[in-house]
């Protein structure tokens, strides 16, 4: 599973990208957030307020209950501010 971080989520986590193999019980975006939060203080800080985080699964916007699987590309980022 490829995990990408953007904007201040990337800054807090400290890296832009990592390839991980979460355990089988991580089945959706919310579960992945919980599991990632335990990886480092940076991860914990980035995900401290889950309501401020948005996610994409395979480059489509996702919800906390969106499923995640081994070969997915998952991205975490703040609400978008383009235009």
């Amino acid at each position: 599973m490829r995990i990408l971080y953007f904007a201040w989520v990337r800054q807090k986590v400290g890296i832009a990208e990592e390839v991980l193999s979460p355990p089988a019980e991580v089945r959706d975006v919310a579960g992945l957030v919980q599991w990632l939060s335990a990886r480092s203080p940076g991860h914990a800080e980035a995900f401290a307020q889950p309501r401020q985080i948005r996610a994409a699964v395979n480059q489509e916007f996702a919800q906390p209950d969106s499923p995640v699987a081994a070969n997915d590309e998952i991205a975490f980022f703040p609400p978008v501010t383009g235009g």
Partner: protein
Amino acid sequence: MPRISVQEAIFDLAAESAALSAGRDDIGGIASFVGICRADDGITAMVLEHYPGMTEKALAGIAAEAERRWPLTGCTIIHRVGRLEPGAPIVLVLTASAHRSAALESCAFLIDWLKTGAPFWKREEFADGTTRWVEARAEDEAATSRW
């Protein structure tokens, strides 16, 4: 087929507009919107980051939705990334149609949706060296929800 581009380079409004109408005599109107970097609160620059791959897909999806809703003869979205100073153009949306209302409405639709539906993030830089991530605005969500 919409023209979608995410680029650091500046865009050329006249050339992009001409490209939509070249060789055609069935277009009644072309609407455009150019978003520009403002110097609010002493901003010295704006740094735009995006999610390569997803951004292009999201913009193509928004353009396809506009083409479903309005009878467009053409549609262009160009969004710049990287470091932009106040006064610099950030985004261009162009829509062409036989009918002015379709061009005008779809142009407003595209810029409203783009604000909340495409993975761009802005960081503001200030003269004292500090930086600040721009926060999403509730009024942008409201602008999107009216469509």
